[in-house]
């Protein structure tokens, strides 16, 4: 325990708990001061945040392996939610089991720091293997739809999300300030802060709908407010967690703010296509796990390659 946790990462975690305390106090005050209004969902949301932050920081504090198992489990939950949401073929049951097995293998490459296999396991090997198994087990009826939708799910829930895990195993040489855990915390904190920022700015100033067809709640004002907040936050916390100077911090903030929005809207498009409001019910107040990691499916690989290109 605490073996490879840098003091900077520990302070960042303390800071996140401080934010949670403030959020809980504000929620409590709102419930008290405005008894006429319904804050049930907000209360549930904040409660779920406590649970998520506690699980995440426990995983970070416990050990590197514990954190990888935790992130792999998040991939499993996301893929399971996706496969429960989309239409599947009865004959593909065994193929789906193979798709699940891709998760431990993908996170094994991360734990073993095998970048070469990590980066091609899903987009090359699973891409070629799963349709081949489908041909053996299932008919051709609906083949393209089944193979295509399964691969999309694996790419989003396993391949993309595992980039967050690979940040954790990047050597300290690239980030002498806070190591791999610093990269990961920077990414996850800013991605989630961006979601909250867009939501709050949208509530406060939202007028112009950004994507009325896909997600009526998204507004241009919310998007820009979130983008600005995320960039300012990136500038503020970069010295604690990363070797970024101010220019690199600002670009990182813009990448996370912009791509986080797209990730959010992409999962919304899937939900709209399938006619559901929430992807699940695992996180009271938020919806399902995909509703929470939707932005991360975009920010994780993009932030990873930004860091990997310039620092390794």
């Amino acid at each position, binding site marked *: 325990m605490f073996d490879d946790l840098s003091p900077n990462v520990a302070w960042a975690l303390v800071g996140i708990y401080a934010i949670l305390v403030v959020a809980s106090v504000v929620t409590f005050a709102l419930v008290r001061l405005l008894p006429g209004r319904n804050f049930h969902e907000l209360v549930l949301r904040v409660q779920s945040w406590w649970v998520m932050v506690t699980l995440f920081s426990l995983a970070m504090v416990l050990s590197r392996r514990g954190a990888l198992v935790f992130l792999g489990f998040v991939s499993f939950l996301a893929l399971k939610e996706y*496969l*429960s949401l989309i*239409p599947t*073929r009865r004959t593909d*049951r065994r193929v789906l*089991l193979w798709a699940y097995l891709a998760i431990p293998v993908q996170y094994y490459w991360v734990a073993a720091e095998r970048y070469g296999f990590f980066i091609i396991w899903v987009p090359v090997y699973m891409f070629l293997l799963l349709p081949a198994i489908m041909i053996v087990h299932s008919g051709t009826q609906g083949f393209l739809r089944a193979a295509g939708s399964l691969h999309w799910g694996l790419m989003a829930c396993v391949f993309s999300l595992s980039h967050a895990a690979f940040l954790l195993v990047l050597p300290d040489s690239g980030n002498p300030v806070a190591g791999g855990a610093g990269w990961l915390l920077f990414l996850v904190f800013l991605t989630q802060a961006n979601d909250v920022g867009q939501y709050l700015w949208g509530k406060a100033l939202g007028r112009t709908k950004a994507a009325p067809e896909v997600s009526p709640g998204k507004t241009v004002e919310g998007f820009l407010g979130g983008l600005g907040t995320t960039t300012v936050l990136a500038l503020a916390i970069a010295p604690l967690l990363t070797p970024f100077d101010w220019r690199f911090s600002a670009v990182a903030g813009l990448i996370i703010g912009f791509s986080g929005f797209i990730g959010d809207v992409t999962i919304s498009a899937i939900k709209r296509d399938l*006619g559901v409001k929430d992807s699940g019910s695992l996180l009271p107040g938020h919806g399902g796990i995909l509703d929470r990691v939707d932005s991360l499916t975009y920010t994780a690989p993009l932030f990873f390659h930004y860091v990997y290109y310039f620092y390794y």
Partner: protein
Amino acid sequence: MMAFLRVCFFALVVRPVIWVAIGLNIRHRERLPRKGPAMVVANHNSHMDTLALMSLFPLAMLGRVHPVGAADYFADDTPLGWFARHMLGVLPLDREARARGEDPFVMCREPLRHDNILILFPEGTRGEPERLSTFKKGIAYLAAEYPDVPIVPVFLHGFGKVLPKGDWLPVPFFCDVFVGLPLPRAGSPDAFMAALMSRMTMLSAEGRFPAWE
């Protein structure tokens, strides 16, 4: 000894599988009976149905929760039958009893008198996965005999995808458990069956289920 084994089996195997590997989306959990005598009636797609419903009750109550299963399927001299009867507390129902003019629910009376909870699957068989088939009328006669015992309908979805009839390999999917309000009890057996079917249809309409062909 069996009670201890049963608690271990549910705490170490059933709950991790049902709650973590599979995952439940439960609506109106507070409507489940907290004490007996009571009956839970559900649609039936998979062996998982029984385990999932039982996993919703506290471990300490397990000895007082009894699923009703087909006596011929869970015959006492097969390993499956032994396991079902002794570990899960399955009460064997003779599917041919009514044809012989006997009482098919004879084994339910003692547990109900001792405030147990029964789990019944009125479809009578797991049938086609994820399709609601007609409920058999026996439950209506049992309901008429025990007008004061609450009967709670539960709609299950997804367990037939996880483990369909005739397959042995479970595949994880999130599953839905929608609990209904206790059924109204005045009226004829036909009226009871109509109320039960319409309640199940209403519960199933609460969800939006993807195609599974």
